[in-house]
């Protein structure tokens, strides 16, 4: 997509006319800062990560001392050891994405369609969606830890009503981690969907009704497809960072050792165990594992107008 556009400019340089060649040189000059930036801060670290992921420990060396090697086993070892964490990350991220979508779509519809006639209220509602960003998400997640802790009125009520058996907690469970992920990524889901729905031409909805489609049918066959670019962007903006998230699932926040996600494993390997090759291998596995389903998803939804 973005690369496609870049490819188009390079093919445009092939004609031999001097004017075009001159213009293409200007284009390349303008692109230079961007290319340099990507090379320096994306390609170089990526290369370094790949090299690190194959490193072997220095014999009789200290912890955290590694030398360049080609150890495939780094990958098989981490896959064996942390396979469940990878799977869990994907299940958690996917669940949170669906939950955020279910919450965000009605919200975005309300703001983008129902509040259209009241621009002031619309602006206010949008501000409220973004408002949580004014507070650090660490603090907000910690606040949820308080709210979901055993001493909170919410959990006491659950205990009191026998919904939650004695001795069971809310924090440290898969529920609280997914809840935290959902909560933290709702604005990322809501805003792109809002952008799509805000442009939704209601005459299409009227035409759906005119052509014998009931409200539900019109919603799924007209409204949702027309909002698809927003839904896809929102899902990507939620799923990708959620799969690599290590704050919500961390023991210090809403998770426990039972809910550790791949992000937590990478963090522990890198910062605590100083097992840099394992952390690098896991990062690359995560990257590839996200790239494959995401590219299938983007291709299948055929979104020329997504980006």
């Amino acid at each position, binding site marked *: 997509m973005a690369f496609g556009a870049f490819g188009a400019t390079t093919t445009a340089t092939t004609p031999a006319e001097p004017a075009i060649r001159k213009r293409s040189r200007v284009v390349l000059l303008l692109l230079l800062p961007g290319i340099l930036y990507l090379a320096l801060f994306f390609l170089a670290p990526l290369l370094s990560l790949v090299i690190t992921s194959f490193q072997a420990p220095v014999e009789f060396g200290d912890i955290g001392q590694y030398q360049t090697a080609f150890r495939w086993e780094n990958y098989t070892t981490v896959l064996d050891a942390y396979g469940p964490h990878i799977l869990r990350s994907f299940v958690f991220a996917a669940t949170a994405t669906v939950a955020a979508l279910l919450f965000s779509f009605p919200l975005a519809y309300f703001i983008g369609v129902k509040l259209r006639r009241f621009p002031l209220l619309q602006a206010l509602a949008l501000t409220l969606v973004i408002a949580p960003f004014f507070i650090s998400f660490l603090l907000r997640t910690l606040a949820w830890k308080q709210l979901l802790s055993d001493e909170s009125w919410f959990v006491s009520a659950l205990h009191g009503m026998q919904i939650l058996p004695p001795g069971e907690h809310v924090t440290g469970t898969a529920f609280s981690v997914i809840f935290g992920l959902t909560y933290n990524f709702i604005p990322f889901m809501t805003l792109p969907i809002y952008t799509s729905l805000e442009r939704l031409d209601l005459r*299409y909805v009227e*035409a759906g*009704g*005119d*052509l*014998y*489609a*009931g409200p539900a049918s019109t919603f799924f066959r007209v409204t949702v497809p027309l909002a698809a670019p927003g839904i896809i962007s929102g899902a990507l903006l939620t799923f990708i960072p959620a799969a690599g998230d290590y704050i919500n699932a961390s023991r210090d926040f809403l998770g426990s050792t039972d809910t550790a996600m791949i992000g937590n494993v990478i963090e522990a390997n890198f910062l605590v165990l100083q097992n840099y090759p394992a952390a690098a291998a896991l990062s690359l596995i995560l990257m590839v594992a996200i790239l494959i389903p995401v590219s299938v998803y983007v291709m299948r939804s055929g979104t020329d107008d997504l980006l």
Partner: protein
Amino acid sequence: MAGSFAESGADLELVGITKRFPGFTAIEDLNLTIPAGSFFALLGPSGCGKTTTLRLVAGLEDATAGRILIGGTDVTNTKSFQRPVNTVFQSYALFPHMTVLENVAFGLKRRKIADATAKAHEALRLVELDHLAQRKPQQLSGGQQQRVALARAVVNRPALLLLDEPLGALDLKLRRQMQIELKNIQQDVGLTFLHVTHDQEEAMTMADTVAVMNKGQIEQMGAPEELYELPKTAFVANFLGQSNLFTGAVTSSGDTSIVVDVAGRKIEIPRERAQRHAGNVTIGVRPEKLRLHTEPPAAQPGSNVLGPGRVTDVSFSGVSTQYQVAVPGLGTLVVFAQNMVFGPVVSPGAEVWLTWTTDHGFGLLDDPADAPRFAADTDTHSLAVQRREKLEAELEEA
């Protein structure tokens, strides 16, 4: 309703329909019956309530009061998807995420009609666009989109087809072509068409019956030629074509004709063509019924004479020439004369007399004074619209 086609068009009956929006009334106590199988046009200036009427019938708006019956069934409280009605929208509203074929098959599939795709192809063949079935709507021209919109509506064989100024966005030549096509399709499929338009020529060429709407009410209804030849109100006389109107007192009222004194001149009109027969009345005659004379014509029975007047303006338009003739005491009259010779027969400043056969005159129910050609735009809605337009214009300039 589901799963089957309407056998033929159905009657539409509006009983005492009133529609109020916050701040203004769009339709006031409207009663209207459209017989099955007819091509009915609602004609009126913008803001007269014609589009609101159509949206009420389609189920896109709820009436404040009154009932809507289609084929004798009360549909007032049903939603748009439950009504045996389809609309060709002014904007076409073709779904951009579907192909042309999917658009046309949409209604059939929702009603679970067998062979939806085959029937959609058939409808596309009717509008000669089957070869573009796999395209997306935005890849078609305006005229093609209009035909797809028509196919998408007609394919459902609705009891009633609603057309909301569907030809408004087309250029003149394409519009003429589509008018003929629409009329042919209506005759082929035998549906009831309700066509809303502000284009009087379109309404007259296409419809069997035309209803002229003004300020939320129907002023006059009838066959196009009947409306044109015998308008009953000043609004109809001026909105549907042009008219020369005069106001004066009735001086004598006979069995077959009445004579009106207009600024000292006696003008005779047939009694059955006059709505009022006593007191001050407004009478009129169409510009093409007037004949120009350069010498005083001899008074003849069965003919009205006005003049002398002075030609103030001549505009040549190909098939005819329009003359403006100022007659003292009467104001300016408009005369259309067919170009039987090369160019205009008189030039500005010439002294002329006008005659017309008494049978061509008509007498109105009201006076032009109490029915201005355009409603005073002082209600809150039009004020708001005007203000917004002004603001937008200013913004554009800035």
